């Protein structure tokens, strides 16, 4: 427990750095890179907060986490209370503390950032959540008495899990249906262990299970069961579709079928979900990266996860190939820094135009074109323009395409009265997340397109509120 320092003293404290494993050591294993604040670091960092009357940080957070109050509780040493405060708005704080793009959200809005470095809100959030988990004192709230209403949730990513958590508290019967054999969505099959240890996700899932949420893995809605069957034959009163944006995009350039060319989804699924990095103990293979040249195409979080996984699988050279400049990269700043420290080579302003292979159909290289930045495009970012005559060949054995994902049509195509937009995403009312089909709600990446964990979680909670209202009133 500590006293608050006077404002002048607060700004003298430098932003506390996140302790992390040595870059060269960690680049060869899948252990978590950041080791987290200890009590002393957390308190010292918390002391930097100016306790603003109108905390900008709260507005910067998509779900409005009460950052200032959480920080106050940390200074007072009331960590479990801080955790409870966090959970009022954020059901997966150990996850968001690790993976939110804080620099554009809470920390991007923090007033300290105007003259100094912003408060390390993500690190504090992570500390509080980890403290709660490690002391094993997560005080699970007790669900309301059973209402007799049943809700089916399709997809177990952050949107589905947070919706399940809120609805179970209201006393509804909740079943989460997941196509894969494990629960967690992208948190499990996409984001690697070294950034988000799987046991964190599994602890949260286990907590939901203890509160009464029922999980059904190996069920593909649209195939095993349709949405109509859920509503009619199986007696669910409402359905929340949270299937994510899991359809991989390819580049449609020559040579994409060569052995060694992967979508980021496949590469990361093999490595994370199927644990191909532990070939002695797991049966799913991944095309060997050891002592080879590996290129990841893209500049987002997925690309950083891919390239850093490749390094850990023993790549001799691991490249990021991105057609714009580093300033336009959508990845979290921390991931870009970590990747560089670990030895990833960044080839920005380069774009592949062809994959080249040998007679047996294996990838041997990639023809790259140099780019320069032209006028801003619709997204406000400067458009990359090819430089004539700049093509050259880069020897490559493995290529991973991480240029984004689209909407998987399995649920939509079997639910014809649920409207989709021209890209195949589900149309849902912004405020209520109702779709055009009675009783069916949708949210997360399958509505917004690829976004973030916290936005998906926010959508799950919004859906829970309007599902609860629908179940109570029966009014659509």
């Amino acid at each position, binding site marked *: 427990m500590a006293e608050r320092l006077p404002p002048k003293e607060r700004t003298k404290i430098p932003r506390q750095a996140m302790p992390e494993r040595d870059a060269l050591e960690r680049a060869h294993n899948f252990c978590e890179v950041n080791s987290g604040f200890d009590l002393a670091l957390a308190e010292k960092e918390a002391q930097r907060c100016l306790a603003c009357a109108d905390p900008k940080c709260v507005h910067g957070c998509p779900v409005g986490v009460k950052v200032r109050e959480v920080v106050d509780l940390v200074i007072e040493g009331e960590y479990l209370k801080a955790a409870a405060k966090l959970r009022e708005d954020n059901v997966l704080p150990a996850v968001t503390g690790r993976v939110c793009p804080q620099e554009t959200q809470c920390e991007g809005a923090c007033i300290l950032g105007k003259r100094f470095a912003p408060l390390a809100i993500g690190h504090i959030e992570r500390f509080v959540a980890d403290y709660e988990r490690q002391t094993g004192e997560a005080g699970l709230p007790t669900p309301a008495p059973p209402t007799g209403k049943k809700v089916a949730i399709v997809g177990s990513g952050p949107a589905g899990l947070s919706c399940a958590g809120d609805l179970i508290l209201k006393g509804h019967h909740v079943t989460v249906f997941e*196509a*894969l*054999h494990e629960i967690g969505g992208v948190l499990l099959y996409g984001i690697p262990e070294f950034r988000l240890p799987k046991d964190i996700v599994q602890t949260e899932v286990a907590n939901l299970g203890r509160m009464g949420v029922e999980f*059904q*893995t*190996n*069920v*593909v809605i649209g*195939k*095993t*069961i349709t949405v109509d069957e859920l509503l009619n034959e*199986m*007696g669910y009163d409402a359905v929340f579709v949270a299937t994510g944006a*899991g*359809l*991989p995009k*390819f580049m*449609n350039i020559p040579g*994409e*079928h060569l*052995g*060694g060319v*992967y*979508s980021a*989804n*496949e590469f990361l*699924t*093999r490595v994370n979900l*199927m*644990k191909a990095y532990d*070939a002695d*103990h*797991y*049966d*799913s*293979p991944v*095309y*060997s990266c050891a002592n080879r040249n590996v290129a990841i195409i893209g500049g987002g979080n997925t690309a950083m996860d891919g390239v850093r996984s490749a390094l850990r699988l023993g790549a001799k050279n691991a490249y990021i190939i991105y057609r714009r400049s580093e300033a336009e990269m959508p990845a979290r700043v921390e991931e870009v820094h970590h990747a560089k420290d670990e030895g990833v080579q960044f080839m920005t302003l380069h774009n592949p135009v062809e994959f080249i292979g040998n007679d*047996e*159909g294996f990838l041997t290289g990639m023809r790259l074109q140099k780019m320069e930045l032209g006028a801003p495009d619709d997204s406000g970012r400067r458009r990359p323009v090819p430089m004539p005559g700049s093509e050259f060949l880069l020897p490559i054995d493995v290529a991973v395409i991480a240029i984004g994902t689209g909407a*998987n*049509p*399995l649920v939509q195509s079997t639910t014809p009265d649920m409207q989709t937009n021209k890209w195949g995403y589900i149309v849902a009312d912004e405020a209520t997340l109702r779709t055009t089909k009675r009783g069916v709600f949708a949210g997360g990446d399958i509505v917004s397109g690829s976004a973030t964990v916290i936005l998906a979680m926010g959508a799950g909670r919004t859906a829970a509120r309007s599902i609860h209202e629908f179940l109570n009133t029966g009014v659509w």
Partner: protein
Amino acid sequence: MNQLATSMFSIVEAWFLAPDIKLLKIQAPLIARKRKAGQFVIVRVHEHGERIPLTIADADPGLGTITIIVQGIGKTTRQVNLLNAGDALLDVVGPLGNPSDIRLFGSVAVIGGGVGTAIAYPTAVALKEVGNFVISIVGARSKELVIMEEEMRATSDELFVVTDDGSYGRQGLVTDMLRELIEAGRSIDHVLAIGPIPMMQAVAEVTRPHKIATTVSLNPIMVDGTGMCGGCRVLVGNESRFACVEGPEFNAHAVDFRMLAQRNRLYRSQEQAALKKFENWLQYALDPTPCCQLEKEHPEIGPRSHT
């Protein structure tokens, strides 16, 4: 409570149809109720296993069972084939893929090579049910590897068995038989060919000059089976298609078989190493203690339930 898919995938019956080819009936009520001819499941045997696709050869919605027929060619399929009634599969998901295109074509030749006969069987049944004249050609390397002959006979108007070595039926390849039928002027309106890639490619070349519409069921390497990874992409008419959600059946005359064969060799060295390790282990593991084989191989997963 609803009966739900994940409750159990216990094996209720299992026996060998031929050396290394095993038939297993599995408790999977939701899949049994839904499946149509031509669809498949993805199976994972144990906690550390890979996900592999297997065609649903038959189903009994009443009993809630599906039938799979598995040829033990690598580590995972051999593990499946070690299982017996009373054991269970950890994960079974489906039914995946599009159902076969079942229409009244007229006269249809159904060609099955090796374990492909088992994959073609449910579609042959469905084709027969809608009134087609079904001519089946069942091919195998030798007599002991001929499977499903009786079942195929029961659903066919005519049946021919061919073996590479002539140890049973006619000596030759399925394509020799097909060519003979075509040259004899038999009317064949549609061909369905399922088997090893070279066989399907050869069938496509036999029917192409005669402009006989030909369907093949492709077997690329899959992971999720739901369109999420793109690993199963095949080139059809120079377009990239995901076999798990857009197939597995495609027009044989548009398929790039060379590409498919190349992609299926992607993990050859890892697969061979895994199989070798597994076979070595099998050698000393074949002691008579009554415990599940998998449990011995992976003590870390703990005892498996035997119900």
